[in-house]
């Protein structure tokens, strides 16, 4: 008798369920990224992923062993995204459809998931780097990423031209990214 036959079926199923759900929850950030590129809105992306996670919990038994949990979850998120689009707009334009297909192909080809440890290291480094930038730069980032304002609104809020906002965002993001990469290299 092999060891697997000693595990009661119910416990084995619960173990499988726990493993799949844990993997799925660990992909949350990747899934939000994917939903965001399809929806163009951070909050809507979070909502879509939340709904997708409920489907994952209900349908974990349909996951095919040996395949990618991230890819499986992405397919569920995609359905939620399409439903969200359906709720908010009558029809996707041709350009939107073409771009959605291109984005989908890119994610299928290149998106991979990080381990919880890697993600934690990155987030800590990122939080520390954001703390180091000037208050004005931070306000630019927060206006864009927290308040989700467009360039004209940020310009109005911070008395900057649209072009200055565009360049400031680019510069600050690059500065933070460089800082994160340096910290991660040092930590290794």
């Amino acid at each position, binding site marked *: 008798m092999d060891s697997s036959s000693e595990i009661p079926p119910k416990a084995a199923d*619960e173990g499988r369920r*726990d493993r799949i*759900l*844990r993997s799925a*929850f*660990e992909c*949350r*950030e*990747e899934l*939000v*990224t994917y939903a*965001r*590129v399809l*929806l*163009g*809105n*951070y909050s809507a992306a979070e909502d879509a992923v939340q*709904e997708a*996670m*409920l489907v994952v*919990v209900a349908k974990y038994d349909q996951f095919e062993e040996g395949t990618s949990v991230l890819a499986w979850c992405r397919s569920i998120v995609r*359905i939620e995204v*399409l*439903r969200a*689009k*359906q709720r908010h707009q*009558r*029809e*996707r*334009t*041709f*350009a939107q*459809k*073409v*771009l959605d*297909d*291109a*984005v989908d*192909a*890119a*994610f299928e*080809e*290149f998106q991979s998931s990080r381990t*919880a440890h890697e993600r934690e290291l990155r*987030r*800590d480094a*990122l*939080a520390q780097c*954001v703390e180091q930038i000037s208050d004005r730069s931070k306000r630019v*980032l927060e206006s*864009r*990423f*927290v308040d989700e304002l*467009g360039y004209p609104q940020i310009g109005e809020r911070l008395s900057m031209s649209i072009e200055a906002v*565009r*360049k400031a*965002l*680019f510069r600050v*993001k690059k500065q933070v*990214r460089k800082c994160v990469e340096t910290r991660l290299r040092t930590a290794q």
Partner: protein
Amino acid sequence: MSENYNPNELEWDDLVQRHLNGELSESEMERLAELLDGAPSLRKDFVERASWETELAEVLRTGGKNESRDFDSAIAGKLETRQGKSIRFLRAMLAVAAAAILMLSTLLFDSQSKLKIANTNEVPVKLDSIAQITGLSGSLIWTGDRGQIMREVKVGTELAGGTIEGLSPDSWFELRFNDGSAVTISGASMLTFSDDGQKRLRLREGRMSADVSPQPDGEPMIIQTRTATLTVLGTSFDVEADLPATSVSVREGNVRVTRNSDGMEIDVPANHRVVAAADQELERRQITGVVHQWKSRVDQGPDETFGKWLAATDADPPLLRAVAYNPKEAPHVVLYLLGLGVRNDEATPVQLNSDSHFEIYGKMEVETDIYFGIEVAYEKGDYAGKFRAKCIVEQDASGNFVASADLPDFELDPSVAAFKDKLAPSPEGLFVNGVWSFTHSETPSGLRISAVELTGGIHE
């Protein structure tokens, strides 16, 4: 950063970021799709930037202490120990989720209902249909403009635009627009289409034939691929699109081809062909005559193949390996399938005659029957059907085989039997566009081929 495009980093970053915030105009969306389609390095960079922007947004929103992170790590960490407490914690979480599921049941039921409708052969009513399906076979998925996903599309279904994807070498799909213009995709192809007064199509990959009725003044049919844009007023032509190049062969009328990488244009008249690729001269060539021989070029790489391409090793030449495939008609059956486009360097049509003879060279792990199929077209490019034969196989002890089939051995493929009256009775005299081969054995056959050869006769 890109093979064909070189947007400066600020422009590229701006485009990606504004896309993430839903701020792109229609033309910018087209530009971004074009950039993504054109360069793997940009696709990779796009995914990395999008991931980075999400990480940054999460940290800015939560100060790096967001609940989801704590929640995830708590689940992950405690599950590692598999202690009772942690399992109870997960169960409590699941109970909360279950309650939420009940609350969302109406929503989810709505979603599942849609999926079920899509799988029950019911023909959805489209209020503003622009085209109708007039023929199909093989595995196809249609995604509608409003997000419906339908695997069981059928003849007569009216569509209001969307994306149709052929999943295997034997897929075939014919669509007729309301003005009588018809397009056919075959093989593993992906086509997006719309008509808001002007027909716009996007052939991401694969092969498409079109017979286009005269279009309204100032609103020609536009067909985009990753490497070219075709402007069509009314004509018949074939397009083949893969990542590096688009080939356009015109049978009647005139098609304007614009190369995306530099905007260069060329008019392609009847019986001419042009290849639009960044690394080739954009010039039209006359299509002359026909040939009766053809030999595959598996050694040139995986372009226009279906299956897993394997590079040469010390022991074997480059091979194309069959992959598991469930036919739509019999989803419980597992076939091992591979496919190849039939092209030659001069784009000369490959015609079959009564003496045509196919030989397939390869290797298998088991002794089993090998089936060989061909997709054929009429002289003007219209789809003529699929035919298949059971090969005569000579296999040695190490698994190497030569399989062969003569044209009289080929019969109409069962998957298109329903269209028997519409299709050619025999492949003789027709033009071959693609070939495929499969096995149907109890265990994986390990079918892989190194070459397929068509000769004009057994005695050539």
